Structure formats: C-alpha cells, structure tokens
C-alpha cells in the first residue's frame, strides 16, 4: 500500500544548526500517529516540514507520491489541514466566518461560498459541537471552544489528513480528553489520517495507533504504542525514572515520571509495579 505521507531521510536546519536529521517514516491512510518527545526534540519542526511550511535541507517529504514542495499551497490545502496550538486573529471575526475560511482552498479568487460550502461548514460545526456558537465572536470564546472551532475549520477543508501541533497545550485536563475523543472519532468514523504532536504521553498512548518517539532531532523509536512507550525508551529519552503500568480501563501503557527521591530504590513503589509482560 502506498503511504499517504513519507519522510525520506529528511533533514531540516535553521542557519548553521541542524534541527532534524535522517528522519524516515511512513504514514498510511487511516493512521493515527502520535509524535512524542522532550522539548526541543524537533516535534513541531517535523510537523511543519511534513506540511511543507519549512523546506527540507536534505531528503524529501512525499505526499501521495509527490514531493510536498511541488504542490501549490492551495492544492495542498484541499486535502491537508493543519491545526496549530495558537491562533493570532487580529480582527474580530464570527465563528461562522472562521469556519468558512476552511472552504477558501476550494473557491476561486472571486467566487463566494455556495450552498455546498455552507453545508460542509455546518456539518463540520455539528461534528465539533460548535453550531450553537456560529454568530459569536471567535475572540470571546473559551480555550476549549476555540480549539473546537479551529478543528471545525480544518474539517471544512474536507481534508484526508490533519496535522495537529500540540493542540492540547492550553487546555485543562477535561478539555484535553474531549479533544482526544473528538479526533479519535474523526479517525475511526471519518477515516481521517491523523498526525498529532503531543506532550501528554499517556493520552497519546490511550488514543493513537502508532507512535513516534523523537530525541534530539532524530527518530528514537517508531512503532505500536507498546513498542514505543517502554521503560527503557522513556528513561533514555527523558532521562528520568519512570513507573510503567497499564491503564486499567483501556489496557494501554501508562507512565508515571518519578522525581529524584521517588525512584525505584525507595522500595515502596516496587510493590505496585505491574509489568505489561506479566498481565
């Protein structure tokens, strides 16, 4: 099967400094790939390189078999959406206006949104539970509401793949769960391919199909959740003692980071350790 997105020996740098090196992996249609790693490991840079926002210094990003840099931005925006962690609107805009922007890639320079575009936008808003916000100003919304509106805008693009850049960074834990529920739903029920950068390893492990662990601009490990979220990998990449167990409900691996005085040597923790192999 032809991968939707493929990084081939990808290298990216700013000025003298290399940020990404020798990155190769594939994303297949219907994947839910979470990218994790410590701060500065190059997660966001990788995501932006995948979207064509920054140029590869070496290697290539192939989207549907064609280098992503060969697409015009408009062409790409018709099937690839990007949800950033912050939005910098200067003018007051209504939620409806914001969501309808997702239709722009499908419109010619002078044309207006037709009935089909309005319908797509309405469905996107229904799906993200933002229909009732339509006439409110985007700037007046709460963080969680804004996040949902931006996802609705991405959905209005009718994309095949959506890239998420730490979308939960500014959400409280309740909204973080809501968010993952939402994109899991998109992945399962709409067949959307998802690549999400996340700093919350447990939530990512709970929802995603595959994971990519990054360290210092390179891929440390790529595989299924239980292949990536292991005690040795976590310790190697994050440099901290971890307690690894299984989420009692979902059965996905779960980590707890331990501080300097809470390590395995203290003994008390060891009794609770449940190794995945043993269950």
């Amino acid at each position: 099967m032809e991968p939707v997105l493929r990084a081939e020996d990808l290298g990216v740098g700013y000025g003298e400094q290399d940020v990404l090196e020798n990155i190769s992996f594939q994303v297949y249609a219907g994947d839910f790939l979470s990218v994790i790693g410590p701060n500065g490991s190059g997660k966001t840079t990788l995501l932006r390189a995948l979207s064509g926002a920054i140029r590869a210094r070496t290697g290539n990003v192939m989207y549907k078999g064609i280098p992503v840099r060969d697409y015009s931005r408009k062409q790409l925006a018709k099937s690839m959406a990007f949800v950033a962690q912050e939005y910098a609107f200067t003018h007051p805009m209504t939620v409806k206006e914001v969501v309808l922007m997702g239709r722009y890639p499908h419109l010619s320079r002078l044309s207006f949104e037709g009935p089909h575009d309005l319908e797509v936008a309405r469905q996107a808003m229904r799906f993200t539970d933002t229909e009732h916000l339509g006439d409110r100003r985007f700037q007046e919304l709460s963080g969680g509401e804004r996040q949902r509106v931006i996802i609705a805008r991405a959905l209005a693009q009718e994309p095949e793949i959506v890239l998420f850049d730490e979308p939960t960074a500014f959400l409280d834990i309740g909204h973080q769960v809501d968010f993952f529920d939402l994109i899991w739903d998109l992945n399962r029920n709409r067949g959307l391919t998802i690549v999400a950068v996340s700093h919350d390893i447990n939530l990512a492990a709970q929802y995603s199909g595959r994971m990519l662990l990054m360290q210092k601009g390179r891929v440390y490990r790529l595989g299924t959740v239980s292949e990536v979220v292991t005690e040795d990998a976590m310790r190697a990449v994050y440099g901290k003692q971890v307690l690894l167990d299984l989420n009692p409900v979902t059965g996905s691996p779960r980590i707890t980071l331990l501080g300097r005085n809470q390590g395995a040597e203290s003994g008390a923790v060891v009794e609770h350790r449940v190794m995945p192999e043993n269950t």
Partner: protein
Amino acid sequence: MIAAKPRNILLVCGILSGLFCLVAALGLASGAVPLGFGRLWEVLRGSSGSAVEEMIVLDLRLPRVLLAGVVGFGLGQCGVVFQTLLRNPLAEPFILGISSGSALGAIAAIVLGLQFPAAVSVCAFGGGLVTIALILGISQGRGSMNTTTLLLTGVVLNAFFYSIIMFFVSTSTEEKLHALLFWLYGDLGRSQYLHVAAVAPVVILGALFLYGYAKSLNLLAAGDEAAHHLGIEVEKTKIVLFVTLSLITGFVVSVSGVIGFVGLIVPHLVRMVLGSDHRVLLPAAGLFGACFLVAADTAARVVIAPTELPVGVITAFLGAPFFILVLNRKGSGWSPS
C-alpha cells in the same frame, strides 16, 4: 457584522454610493461663494446664466470633489490592507514612511527648483517608490517580512525623511514655505481634472486588483501560519500587496500631499459596523473613505472662508480625538496578540 454575500455587498456599496452623492452635492454647493442646492442644480443644468458660478462649480469644485473622492477611496483601501498585512491597528499608508518619502521627493523638487514638467509630482511618486524599495530591501535582508521589522523600518525611515524635510524647511526662503507646507499637511487646493485623470485609473485598477485578494486578506488576518495552511503563498502575496499599496499611495500623495488619519479612521469605523470580512470591508472602506475626505475637504473650504485650510488639518483635527474614542470603546476589535 454583515455576511459576505454578493447581495449584501451590493447593498452596502449602493448605500455608500448614495451617501457619496449626497456629500458630493454638499461639497459642490458650498465654499467661499455659497450657492445652495437650488442654485447648484441650475448651474449643473446650465441655466444659471452666470459664467462665474459655472466656472466655480465645474472648474473649481467638481475636480476637487472628484479628486477628494478618488484620494479618499485609495487611502481608505490602503488603510484596510496595511492594517491587515502589518497586523497592527495603527498601520496606515503613512506608518511605513512611504508618504514622507513622497513628501521628501516633492519638497526636494521645490527647493532644488527642478523645472521639467510635473517635476514635483514625479519626484513625489519617485520618493514613495524608493521608500518601498528601501523597506523591502531592509526587511528582506533580515530574512523575512517580519511585521516588527517592517514597522521599525517605517518608523526609522519616517524620522530620517522628516529630518531631511526639516532641513529643507529651515533653509528655504520664506516665500517657498507655503508650497512646502502643502506637502506636509496634505491639500486638495490645486485639484484639476488632470490630477483626477492621472490618479483615478490607478486607484480603480488597484481596487479591482486588491478585491481579488479579499479572501487571502481574510486568511492573513487569521495569522501567517493559518494563511499558509489554508492555501496562501504568504511571502509572495505580501510582496505583491505591498507593491500595489505603494503604487496607490505614491500616486495619491503626488496629487494631495500627506493626508493623515483617513487611512486610519475609515477602516476602523467600517470594521466596527460591517465586520472584518475583506470582501465587504474593501469596497466599503473605499467608498466611505471617499465620503469622509469629500466632507473633510468641504469643511476645509468653508470653516474660515475665503481663506482655505489644508484638508490634512481637518482630518487630523477630527481624527485624533475620534481615534482615542474608538480605542477606548469596548470591542473596538483589535485583540492584543
């Protein structure tokens, strides 16, 4: 807030065009020699029987009203686009120093006594273009079209140009001062049909061209990153827009001098009433800018008649307090980002 549908846009344009006709009629009827609407109508029908009044209306006021309309239209539109491009509520055609560059060109032509035809206008236009080239050169040299770099460049160029202007002003003879101040305050007192014919095509074609970028501007208002991911070639689009704006500004300044505040107030007012969709905002700000400047220029002609004020004095006098009022109003629109 108005949804950007063709019907709504036509409606808004219709209403504003009607307003423009009203303001223009008022402008034609008033001045140092008050005519009133009745007399104006007779003059326009050619039945006034007064050659002097016909000349006043047709040769003096009409070109002036038309030029004010064209200049106001251009300034209103440029203000909208500058504010969006620079993501700054204070941005207007003059913040980047384009207008002071133009004014410097004009003043240099006067002081150096250049004598080729339309020397002053040509130098004004040239000054504006050189400024844009400088701005783009400096900010490109620093890597990208970063907003802060652009604004800082503008501020620095403004200060630099004004220092040269003040040098010329302080060393010029007294008789030339009036002509120099014309460029500093903005003035429509020398309007002729020739000026209208020179500037109107640029402003109209510019408006059509900008309208093609209305949706792109909506996206740019949502942030460079978002615009990029929603299908805009951000850098390229910005450069194209900046060059268009400098063309319009250069032409406008070359016939009117530096008229401030129009490009600042008009976009804010229109945005407050009609919302931020550029498909509505662009034509509405153009038309409203036209109305605003015709009204301001009429005031400039009437306030201390038969002496005339430079229209820039009126726009700044109304503009500054009004702007503070707008800024203090809740929901004036600009979110600190």
